[in-house]
C-alpha cells in the first residue's frame, strides 16, 4: 500500500542527468569548460574542415544552425533562393557542439569530481575571499581563453557581462523591492554620458568635447574614477524617481519612471554640447575584458551583500507589506531611496562600461527597446534572485545573438518564449533563491 503512495524515485532522463552531475562543484565545471576552450583551440579548426562547415562556429554552433533556419524561413515567406546543400550544416554544427563542448565538459567535470571537491574543501578552510579569488580567477581564465578565438566572441562576452550587471541592478528595484521601474535605461544613459564626458573630455581629442586636457600615458588608471563618476551621476538622476516613490506605487510609479526615461533621452538628444542625437564617440579603449569582469564581480558582490543583509531585506518587507514594515521600525523612505540610488549607481557603471566597449554613445541606444530587453532579462531569469539575473541576462543575450539571422522574426521568438515562461513560471526561471557565495564556491557533498 505505502509503496504505491510514495512518489516515483526514478525519474526520466533529466533526472538521471541531474543525478550524474550532482556531485560536481563549480570548480569542476570551470575546469571542464577550460578543457573545452583549450580543446577547441587545438582541434576546432580541424573539426570544422572535417565536418565541411564554412567557418568555425563562434557561438557553440548555435549561430550556424539558426542561419540555416533563417534561410529556410526566408525561402518560405519571401521566396528567397535557398541553397539546400546548407542543410547539412545543422547536424554538422550539432556534432561540433557535442564533440568540442558537451562531451569534454561532461567527461572532465565528472572525472575531476574528487580532486575538485577536495580542492574546494581545502580552499574553504581559508577566509571566503581566498576561495572567491581563486575561483573567479579561474573563471576569468576560462572566459579569456574562450574569447581569444575571435573578436566577435570578445565583444559578445563583454556585452553579456555588462548585461548581467545591468539586469541585477534593475532586479534590486523591480524584484527585491517590487516596484515596476521603467527608468533603468535612463540611468544607464546618464552613466554612459557622464563617464564619457570624463574620459573623452579629459583624455581624448574629439570633435564635440574638444582637445584633450591631459596627455598622460597612464590615463587609463583613472577609468574606475570615470565609472564611479558616471554611477554617482546616475544616482543623482534617480532622485527624481525615488522621491515620488514615497507617495506612489505600482502603475503610477511605472508611468513616472517611464516619463523619466523619455526626459533623459530627449535631454541628451537636445543637448548640443554633448553631441545632440549623434552623441559622443572616440572613447578610449579602456573597457577591456578584465576590467569588465572585475567590475561585474564587484557589482554582484556588493548587491548580493546588500540584499542578504537585514537592511537589504527591508526591501522585501516594503514590497510584501509596506505598513507592516513601517510598524516594525523599518525606515521605508530610506529603504526606497537606497534601492533606487544603489540600483541606479550600478546601472550607471554598466552604462559607462557599455560606452567604452562600443566606443560611442548616443541617445538612440537608450530607447524603449533597451528597456524591453532588460525587463525581459529580469523577468525571464527570475525576480528577487542573483542567480536569476545572471541566468536571465546570459540566456537572453545568447538567444538574441543566436536568433540574429532570423532578423525581425527574432522579436517574435523571444517574446513568445517570455510568454511561455510567464505562463509556467510566473516569477521567472530562478526566482526567490538566495545566492549563498559560500555554497556556490564550496564543495558538493555526496552521500
Amino acid at each position: 500500500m505505502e509503496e504505491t503512495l510514495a512518489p516515483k524515485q526514478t525519474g526520466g532522463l533529466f533526472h538521471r542527468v541531474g543525478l550524474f552531475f550532482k556531485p560536481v562543484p563549480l570548480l569542476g565545471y570551470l575546469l571542464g569548460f577550460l578543457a573545452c576552450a583549450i580543446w577547441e583551440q587545438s582541434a576546432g579548426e580541424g573539426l570544422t574542415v572535417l565536418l565541411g562547415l564554412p567557418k568555425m562556429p563562434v557561438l557553440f554552433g548555435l549561430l550556424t544552425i539558426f542561419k540555416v533556419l533563417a534561410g529556410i524561413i526566408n525561402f518560405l515567406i519571401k521566396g528567397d533562393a535557398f541553397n539546400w546543400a546548407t542543410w547539412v550544416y545543422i547536424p554538422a554544427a550539432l556534432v561540433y557542439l557535442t564533440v568540442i563542448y558537451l562531451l569534454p565538459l561532461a567527461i572532465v567535470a565528472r572525472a575531476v569530481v574528487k580532486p575538485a571537491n577536495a580542492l574546494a574543501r581545502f580552499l574553504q578552510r581559508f577566509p571566503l575571499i581566498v576561495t572567491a579569488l581563486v575561483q573567479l580567477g579561474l573563471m576569468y581564465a576560462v572566459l579569456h581563453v574562450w574569447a581569444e578565438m575571435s573578436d566577435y566572441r570578445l565583444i559578445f562576452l563583454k556585452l553579456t557581462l555588462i548585461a548581467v550587471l545591468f539586469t541585477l541592478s534593475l532586479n534590486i528595484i523591480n524584484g527585491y523591492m517590487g516596484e515596476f521601474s521603467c527608468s533603468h535605461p535612463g540611468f544607464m544613459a546618464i552613466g554612459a554620458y557622464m563617464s564619457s564626458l570624463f574620459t573623452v573630455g579629459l583624455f581624448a581629442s574629439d570633435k564635440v568635447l574638444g582637445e584633450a586636457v591631459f596627455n598622460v600615458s597612464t590615463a587609463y588608471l583613472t577609468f574606475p574614477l570615470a565609472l564611479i563618476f558616471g554611477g554617482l551621476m546616475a544616482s543623482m538622476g534617480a532622485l527624481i524617481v525615488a522621491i515620488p516613490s514615497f507617495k506612489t506605487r505600482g502603475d503610477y510609479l511605472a508611468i513616472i519612471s517611464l516619463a523619466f526615461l523619455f526626459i533623459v533621452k530627449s535631454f541628451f538628444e537636445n543637448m548640443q554640447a554633448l553631441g545632440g542625437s549623434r552623441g559622443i564617440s572616440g572613447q578610449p579603449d579602456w573597457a577591456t575584458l578584465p576590467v569588465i569582469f572585475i567590475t561585474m564581480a564587484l557589482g554582484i558582490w556588493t548587491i548580493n551583500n546588500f540584499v542578504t543583509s537585514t537592511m537589504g531585506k527591508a526591501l522585501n518587507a516594503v514590497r510584501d507589506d509596506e505598513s507592516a514594515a513601517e510598524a516594525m521600525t523599518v525606515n521605508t523612505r530610506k529603504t526606497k531611496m537606497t534601492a533606487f540610488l544603489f540600483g541606479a549607481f550600478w546601472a550607471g557603471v554598466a552604462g559607462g562600461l557599455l560606452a567604452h566597449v562600443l566606443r560611442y554613445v548616443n541617445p538612440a541606444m537608450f530607447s524603449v527597446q533597451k528597456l524591453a530587453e532588460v525587463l525581459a532579462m529580469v523577468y525571464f531569469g527570475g525576480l528577487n534572485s542573483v542567480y536569476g539575473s545572471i541566468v536571465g541576462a546570459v540566456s537572453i543575450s545568447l538567444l538574441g545573438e543566436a536568433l540574429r539571422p532570423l532578423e525581425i522574426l527574432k522579436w517574435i521568438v523571444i517574446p513568445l518564449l517570455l510568454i511561455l515562461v510567464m505562463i509556467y513560471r510566473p516569477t521567472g526561471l530562478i526566482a526567490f533563491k538566495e545566492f549563498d557565495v559560500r555554497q556556490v564556491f564550496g564543495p558538493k557533498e555526496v552521500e
Partner: protein
Amino acid sequence: MPLLHVTDMSHNFGGLQAVSKYNLSLDPGQITGLIGPNGAGKTTIFNLMTGIYRPAQGSVIFDGEELVGKKPNQTASMGLARTFQEMKLWRHMTVLEHIKMARYSKLSYGLLGAFLDTPKRRREERYTTELAMEYLQMFAVDQFADQLVVNLPYGAQRRVEMARALVIEPKVLLLDEPTVGMTPDEMMAMIEVVRTAHERFNLAIFLIEHRLRVVHELCQRVQVLVFGQVIVEGTPNEVQNNPKVIEAYIGEQEVDF
C-alpha cells in the same frame, strides 16, 4: 507620570467623526482593554497613536515625548510596538527573517556595512540571528525558522507576529484583536501567550478585543468605545454589568461569556 498619555485626541474622515476627545493613560506593567462594536473606531485609535494617521486634535505623550507628527517607524523605534488584526506578515520572507527585520532600527552597521559585508555587519547579523532564535523559542515557533511564514498554521503565524512585535523591545505593546478567527482552544493558548509576554517583559499592554472572555482573563481595566467615544471605563466586572454596555452590544454576536 503614566508611560503613555493620550489627551483629547480627535480625528475625522471627511464628515465622519471617527474618534472624539479620546483619553487614555497607561502605566507600566498594566494590561488595558479596548472593546466596542464593529466600526467603533478602535483600530483608528491605534493608527492615530502609532502615527499612521495624524490626529486632528489632541496629544499623545509617550515616555515624556510627543508622538503626534512622528512616523510609524519612529514611534515603533521609541518603543510603541503593535500587531495588526490581519497580521500583515511578509509572504516571501521566512520566519527568522521576520523577527530579524524588526531589529532594523537597532542595526548600526549602516549602508556601507551592508554593501561591503564588514566584520561589524557580520557580528551584528550574527547577534541578531541569535536573539531572533531566542524569541522564536520563547513562542515555540523555532522549528519553523527557515520556512516561509505563509506555510505556517494560523496559530503559529499569530505567535510569529507576537514575537516580531516583541523583539523591538517595546515598552508598550498594542494588540489589535489577537484572537480574531480563533477556536476556543486557540484563544486560550493565545491568552497564555499574551500573559507570558506580559510577565516576561513587564510590558504595558493595550489590546483591542471583541470577545469579553479575553478581556476578562487579561485586563485590569477596560474602556468601551462606541461611535468614537468612550462610554464606560472601569474593571472588567464593572463594565460587563453596565447597562450602557449591554445596550451597545445588543445584537452583537461576538459577545461570548
